[in-house]
């Protein structure tokens, strides 16, 4: 202790020899700025916070890998939402196959949603109601009512005609209104 107060603290941080890259990193910065929104959409799609960040990470990785396919000047957010949505569809399909193969049907609800009872208990009315929607209605509801996309933008993200998106949205919304009660 006698070296105490006056001794110079050893530096745990190695000196920085290299300057930080100052190249224009528009793409990375763009993705970075989108992260909070991507996490929100991911949480809505997966309905499970652990899966949500995994989906986010897979989305980011694929977006970076395929950045050549993004056209500068076009909307980065729609492009990445679309990537996330497509990964999730593939995941969900694979998961359904796995569950159909391995899950004992008597175990019912506890499987697939992360397994834990606690999680199921903590699900809110909204989570439960959303879980009952078909995937295509849920994604339409999330894109328009939570993410704030126009019908046209949402239709582009899920790659369907605007009319189709519109009718999925109306059906999904009506189902939610019924499930959650008139007062919503």
């Amino acid at each position, binding site marked *: 202790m006698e070296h105490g107060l006056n001794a110079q603290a050893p530096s745990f941080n190695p000196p920085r020899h290299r300057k*930080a890259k100052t190249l224009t990193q528009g793409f990375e*910065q763009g993705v970075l700025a*989108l*992260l*909070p929104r991507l996490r929100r959409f991911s*949480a809505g799609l997966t309905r499970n916070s652990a899966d949500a960040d995994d989906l986010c990470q897979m989305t980011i990785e694929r977006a970076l890998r395929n950045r050549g396919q993004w056209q500068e000047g076009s909307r980065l957010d729609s492009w990445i939402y679309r990537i996330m949505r497509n990964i999730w569809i593939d995941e969900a399909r694979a998961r359904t196959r796995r569950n159909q193969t391995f899950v004992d049907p008597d175990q019912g609800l506890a499987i697939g949603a992360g397994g834990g009872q606690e999680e199921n208990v903590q699900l809110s009315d909204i989570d439960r109601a959303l879980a009952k929607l078909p995937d295509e209605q849920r994604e339409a509801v999330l894109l328009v009512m939570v993410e*704030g996309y*126009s019908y046209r933008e949402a239709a582009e993200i899920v790659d369907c005609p605007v009319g189709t998106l519109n009718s999925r949205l109306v059906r999904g919304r009506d189902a939610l209104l019924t499930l959650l009660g008139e007062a919503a």
Partner: protein
Amino acid sequence: MTISPERLAAYADGELHDQEAREVEAAIAGDPALKEQLDAHLALKARLFAHFAPIAEQPVPDRLRSAILPEQAKVVDISSARERRENKKQRWIWIAGPALAASLALVFLNFGTQTPDETHAGGALAQALDNQLAATQGAEAPVRILLSFRDANGRFCRGYASRSESGIACHETKGWRLEKRFGGAGQASTEYRQAGSNVADVLATAQEMARGPALDAAGEASAAARSWR
């Protein structure tokens, strides 16, 4: 005229053009049942949005950030980004005061805020600025008042946001002068801007303009009662 469920939903989502929107508004005015349906739509939307909003407010896990940024840049950019973020937060938290709590879970609608001239508020915006109180406004108010304060000249000013625009208006003899205007608050925004950053801009600018803290609920109510003079 009859309004189909799809059309009403499209109205609730801000999808209709002015002319169509006016038609729906006229139909709603004469039909309480339709109004009830609209309210149910808006309430559902507000509830869904509020349910997911906290996720976008949480700090992003480092593993996601580092998936994007290469190691060296990460060290520099994350810490400075965090600093910027926290500064921004701290900068507006005190100014927003009690009014902010009511504005945290926002759903912004696209409503006519047409102005009589370029510099002053008109239409639904002027009405909201005159009458709406940040503390008591409904969740589905098309124009949301974010906060009210006095500027350096002693004028009452109010920060507002709707889906299509946001800004700060200050009260003068001619009405509400549009001092600062930012983009819409609820639209999925163009380029990289995060939806909601316009709201942060309004609040940060308000803080720069304000002479003191934002009005609390009582101060706001009494200013409104004196017609903001």
